[in-house]
């Protein structure tokens, strides 16, 4: 049914990903000197799994009521609210940590409030702090995935349910719960995998060396000991962990068919009474939790804006280009993989998920070792960053696009086939318009993630390739905390603008 070109493109994309994620780890590991895991390494593995697991469960559980309230309630500024809620996910981790500290820290309003009430001060440091930060960072993602899930339940089902006299309870059981069963495990796994490779958050808020993650061990092996072999070994451990979780998740995730609705805008039923009160409370708390640190960021960043060194703006321009190019590349690659998967190629999905298991640091080092013989790497810094960022954001795109692409294929595959709608025409007339919403969201996400990424560029950077996150790091590393705060604000604003722009573009085209 598919034309010849698409699987070919998908195949090329898949090969590239495998080369980048597995190849780089192999290249890195080839210079191995020892193959021993120390007790500290195993402790790191344990802590990594525990904090990721808790973060994933907490993020997903909290996302369910929040997403539900967001989907079924209409209120002033809802659209803005929905988009703003995605912001924490787009924050560079270290910016997020400082933003959280501004609220939950020793001199933040939470502890000030507790003091007024005569309650003991709350410390953000420790496992609970790590989980809190990860929930702050990832709740928006889980929430958006669930919102999409809710929106994907055809209005006809709700109408049918209401016509059958189902109240909110039975509706939840028969329509919403199956959707949650299908979407939530995927969301939880995504959060889990994201937390698995977390490094700065776990270490900064963990409170001590007991809070070491595997990624930190990789960092240490590469940067301090220059032992790429050990890094490769640890990367393999991390990879196994990620792959195991992904496989379990694939088993847990049920692919629920909801059939096609006619795409009429029809809000999910919004019962009143105590349910309205609960939703309002959930929305209020969610907004407070997710938005107050952002407000603090704004508050602290604005004063320094005027005095920003000119290099910041140059770096910002560079970052924008890198982000847009890599996001567009990632979406094109993601679309190719998803379309290949939908027409039967299982490998395409696996290839798309592979980068989740790979460490950016290891990919970067592998590429460095491979590219080094071909000349000065700093000249390749930006292209390599584009490539790696695109690769690392691919799993999000695949996860976002796949369910909806499956739906499109199930609903319209035969009709398109019968009309001879193949190749580019099918992409243009069927796939892109039907996938506009998740594609816009995914491209925006990818752009924002790429914007905030510090990992690879730090390995390759030369004078002409300093990106904005690197600039923030440099400013903070030279006592210029105010300038760093302002530059971070610029970074966040740009990331968010990119995300917003792409997301809007998608939503507008989806208004069919």
């Amino acid at each position, binding site marked *: 049914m598919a034309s010849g070109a698409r699987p070919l493109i998908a195949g090329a994309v898949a090969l590239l990903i495998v080369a980048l994620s597995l190849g780089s780890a192999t290249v890195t590991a080839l210079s191995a000197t020892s193959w021993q895991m120390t007790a500290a390494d195993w402790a790191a593995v344990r802590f990594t799994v525990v904090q990721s697991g808790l973060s994933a469960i907490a993020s997903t559980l909290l996302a369910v009521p929040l997403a539900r309230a967001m989907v079924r309630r209409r209120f002033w500024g809802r659209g803005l609210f929905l988009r703003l809620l995605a912001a924490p996910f787009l924050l560079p981790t270290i910016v997020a940590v400082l933003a959280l500290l501004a609220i939950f820290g020793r001199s933040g309003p939470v502890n000030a409030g507790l003091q007024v009430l005569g309650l003991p001060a709350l410390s953000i440091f420790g496992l609970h702090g790590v989980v809190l930060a990860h929930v702050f960072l990832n709740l928006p993602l889980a929430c958006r995935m669930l919102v999409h899930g809710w929106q994907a339940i055809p209005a006809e089902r709700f109408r049918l349910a209401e016509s059958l006299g189902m109240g909110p309870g039975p509706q939840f059981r028969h329509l919403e719960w199956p959707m949650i069963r299908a979407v939530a495990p995927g969301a939880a796994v995504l959060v889990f995998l994201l937390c698995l490779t977390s490094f700065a958050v776990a270490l900064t808020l963990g409170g*001590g060396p007991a809070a070491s993650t595997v990624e930190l061990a990789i960092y240490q092996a590469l940067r301090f000991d220059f032992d790429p072999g050990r890094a490769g070994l640890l990367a393999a451990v991390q990879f196994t962990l990620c792959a195991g979780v992904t496989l379990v998740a694939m088993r847990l995730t049920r692919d629920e068919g909801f059939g096609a609705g006619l795409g009429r805008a029809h809000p999910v039923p919004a019962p009143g009474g105590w349910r309205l009160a609960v939703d309002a409370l959930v929305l209020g708390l969610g907004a407070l939790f997710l938005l107050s640190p952002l407000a603090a960021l704004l508050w602290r960043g604005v004063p320094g804006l005027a005095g920003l060194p000119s290099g910041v703006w140059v770096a910002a321009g560079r970052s924008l280009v890198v982000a847009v190019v890599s996001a567009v590349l990632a979406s094109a690659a993601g679309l190719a993989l998803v379309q290949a998967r939908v027409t039967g190629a299982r490998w395409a999905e696996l290839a798309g998920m592979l980068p989740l298991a790979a460490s950016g640091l290891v990919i970067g080092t592998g590429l460095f070792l491979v590219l080094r013989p071909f000349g000065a790497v700093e000249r390749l810094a930006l292209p390599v960053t584009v490539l790696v960022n695109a690769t690392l954001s691919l799993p999000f795109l695949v996860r976002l696009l796949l369910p909806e692409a499956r739906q499109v294929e199930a609903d319209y595959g035969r009709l398109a086939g019968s009309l001879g709608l193949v190749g580019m025409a099918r992409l243009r007339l069927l796939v892109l318009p039907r996938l506009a919403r998740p594609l816009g969201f995914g491209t925006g996400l990818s752009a924002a993630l790429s914007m905030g990424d510090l990992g690879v560029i730090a390995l390759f950077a030369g004078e002409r390739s300093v990106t904005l996150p690197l600039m923030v790091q440099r400013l*903070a590393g030279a006592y210029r905390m105010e300038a760093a705060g302002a530059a971070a604000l610029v970074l966040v604003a740009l990331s968010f603008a990119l995300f917003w722009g792409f997301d809007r573009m998608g939503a507008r*085209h989806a208004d069919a």
Partner: protein
Amino acid sequence: MESSIPTIPSQLEDMMKLFPLAAALTCLASMAQAETPVLTVMTYDSFASEWGPGPAIKKGFEATCGCEVRFVTAGDGAALLSRVKMEGAASDGDVVVGLDTNLTAAATASGLFAPHGLPAAKSLPVTYDDPLFVPFDWGWFAFVYDKTKLATPPKSLQELADSQVKVIIEDPRSSTPGLGLVMWVKQAYGDKAADLWKGLADNIVTVTPGWSEAYGMFLEGEADMVLSYTTSPAYHLIAEKDDTKAAAPFAEGHYLQVEVAGKLAATDQPALADQFLAYLVSDAGQAVIPETNWMYPANTPAVGLPAGFETLISPEKSLMFSSDEAGGLRDAAVAEWQAALAR
């Protein structure tokens, strides 16, 4: 009936326009090749940044050498050494600026460096003479606090451990000051280092991956003290006109960080490399250091130190392991730290 279709081709076209952009970027980067000889200086990020010593030193040196100075950077000293090792003999680099004495043993062992032939530094509180590495600046590690918030700071590591004062430190596995503190405790307490760490455990709010996170959190009021340098208050005093920050003098003495530069053996510009190192430790080069790197110059320039530096504490006792000792002790000392702090 209009034939326009409300789909995404316009978006696709935008994408198409961007690919040449990426290609153009690559070209632009490779066009940087110039006719004049190029001296490639490998250093850490903040050295080469706009506000670091890099630009002034580049300008000053280029005025005399008839060459172009190009910086290649890595995150910090440790990352810098990693990069040097990764590039090996194939490196374009000519000079490496910004390793410290905890790294020189490994750097020497790599066999990638050549002798510099320069005289020993004049203004170090300890004697340091290494044929491969020439010091260009130094500083004492210290706990910095806010005088308006902490009236009576502890007077020693031991007093800190016995107190309720909250501190933020850096991780020795990923940061230079973090490793400096581990060595500090090791040299001051030897076999009893683990006990001191156990005493410090309840003072430590958190351990950050790098200096900037720790310092940022301290400024946000997350702790009473932060592990930094005796020179840190100078930044606030000179650049921000803020005299509330101070470093606490500790009775055990203060561990020293000496930052060094070296010439790569595989350089294709050996003469220029020698000239650059000489310039770096000359009066002109050293005068740049205090107010850009916020460290002490290794050779105090004729003009002296900037006003404000005289307010800094000047520990009577300096602690520092030799490169070889540091190299030999590091792993065990870090393991000891880790074991003592892991609850």
